[in-house]
């Protein structure tokens, strides 16, 4: 129904480059999360795919057909904006039928399609409501319904959950996932929330400052970040400098044996996730452990985050252990298999 291919997209606002050399392929029926902090260029990319903005360079292909020069209404790609943007002078069903009307569907067909989509998005009975009488969550669902009713080849969602409070967000997330897999609509789902990106899709594309930095499964991005910026975005705050020597990564925190022997003698940066560092409070001398002092702690519910000062630098540790306090002496172990050494 719709495979989406973005090739080498470069986008400017005036002279200001916003997105550079963006490449992404989405299989038919797949949902990919486009993740990035605010201002990274996510909305800009969606607008270009939707045809609302022209790229400076590059091509957009739907099922292998270039649509780069088609106006938005001729593209089989529908964008849902961050705000619901329901037309205030129309009721719910008129809003949902808007696209069908533009397409020239008969009144009968429109009514049937609207009724079906109202049920699918759990909006039954709200068809005649005025838009301003709806809650935020209902408005967002109407916006979703208004796009889905067109059965587009490509669905582009711009942070559809960011305006909802936590409980509603969870509900809406399930709804979107359910509908997406039921209808099998190829979807590009934009979010700035890393947890949301990991939950929503089998593949995540990380955009930083207008550049695609890594595409892969949630696990890949989380556990095998391509570079320090990606690691930092996913909350990996520990960076260790060192040198490769004969299958060993030598650092101030100790030597770590590595499998791939490459770049002998070269300086490298490595990272280890806070939750991968083991923390013990026994003061007895433990083999492979680094001594350190807790500088401060923060309780985060399931775990406690501790900033630990070691002789060779500071490390952030996320530990299930409770009762840590500032000034306490602890020992840390950095399991070698959890160390991720970045390629050059």
């Amino acid at each position, binding site marked *: 129904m719709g495979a989406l291919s973005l090739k080498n997209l470069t986008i400017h606002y005036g002279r200001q480059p916003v997105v550079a050399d963006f490449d992404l392929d989405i299989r038919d029926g797949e949902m990919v999360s486009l993740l990035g902090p605010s201002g990274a260029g996510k909305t800009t990319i969606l*607008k270009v795919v*939707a*045809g*609302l903005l022209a790229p400076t360079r590059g091509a957009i292909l739907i099922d292998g057909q270039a649509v780069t020069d088609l*106006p*938005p*209404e001729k593209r089989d*790609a*529908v*964008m849902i*904006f961050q*705000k619901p*943007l329901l*037309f*205030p*002078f129309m009721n719910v069903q008129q809003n949902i039928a*808007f*696209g069908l009307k*533009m*397409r020239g569907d008969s009144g009968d067909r429109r009514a049937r399609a609207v009724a079906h989509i109202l049920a699918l998005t759990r909006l039954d009975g709200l068809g005649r409501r005025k838009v*301003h009488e709806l809650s935020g969550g209902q408005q967002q669902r109407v916006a979703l319904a*208004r*796009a889905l009713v*067109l059965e587009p080849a490509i669905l582009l969602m711009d942070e559809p959950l960011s305006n909802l409070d936590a409980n509603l967000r969870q509900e809406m997330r399930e709804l979107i996932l359910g509908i997406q897999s039921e209808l099998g609509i190829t979807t590009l789902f934009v979010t700035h929330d890393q947890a949301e990106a990991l939950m929503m899709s089998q593949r995540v594309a990380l955009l930083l400052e207008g550049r695609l930095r890594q595409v892969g499964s949630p696990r890949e991005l989380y556990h095998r970040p391509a570079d320090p910026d990606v690691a930092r975005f996913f909350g990996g705050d520990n960076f260790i400098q060192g040198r490769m020597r004969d299958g060993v990564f030598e650092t101030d925190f100790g030597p770590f044996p590595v499998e791939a022997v490459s770049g002998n003698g070269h300086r490298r940066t490595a990272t280890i996730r806070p939750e991968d560092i083991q923390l013990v409070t026994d003061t007895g001398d433990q083999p492979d452990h680094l001594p350190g002092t807790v500088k401060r702690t923060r309780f985060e519910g399931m775990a406690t985050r501790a900033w630990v000062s070691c002789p060779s630098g500071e490390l952030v540790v996320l530990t299930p252990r409770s009762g840590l306090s500032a000034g306490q002496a602890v020992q840390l172990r950095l399991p070698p298999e959890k160390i991720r050494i970045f390629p050059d």
Partner: protein
Amino acid sequence: MRALGTRLLAPAILVAVGLPFATLGVWSLAERWFFPDLWPQAWGLRAWRYVFATAGGQVAAALVQSVAVATATSLVSVVVALPAARALGLYDFRGKDTISVLLTLPVIVPPLSVAMGLHLWFIRLGLAETFVGVVAVHLTFCLPYAVFVLWGVFSNYNPDFESQARSLGASQLRVWRQVMLPMVMPGLIVAGLFAFLLSWSQYLSTLIIGGGRLTTLPVLLFALMGSGDRPVAAAVSIVFVLPAFVALLFSARHLGGQSLAGVR
């Protein structure tokens, strides 16, 4: 306390608005009314007979002329102001501040000077003493007003609504007609009404450019007042105010509780 205030509000407004009208009404029905009496000594329908019978043709013609001029001015104002205000409200470009100042000029400069200044040009252009000429001189201040009103509307307008409509399959033309127009309609009505009322109440500029050929209601009103016949002037004044009042009520009902700008 609050209930009392609310209950008194409507009568207070009625008195404030109604009193001048009531005075006009009394004057138009006075046959004889000399100082220092608070009430006419004799009542009669002489003034109204004059307005509807003796001078009926003149008044009717002036009414038609006024409606025609004000309607034309209002329509042109709105049609021209809409795209201009849209650009001013939605885009940033060089010279925007200058435009803003230029737009206030006709509002600040007295209509008399504008009309005098334009008169010579209009004579040369063959616009003096014509309908088009009078509408054109009214436009010099009605149009800026309309632009200002709609500028405000468009600076509260979210163009993403249009992008959303495009993405849902509407062409640019249909987006303008079926999304933008309904969204700004309340503001459009207000702008049109402002322009209409402003044109409706013009006297000097109509007189100068129209040269007495174009007799609108205010022009006729002043002529009748000059003769010193107060009851007749009062009756003509009522004829003059009523259509404006009706236009106001009509649009108030039309606007009923809607905000002026599209909801963001």
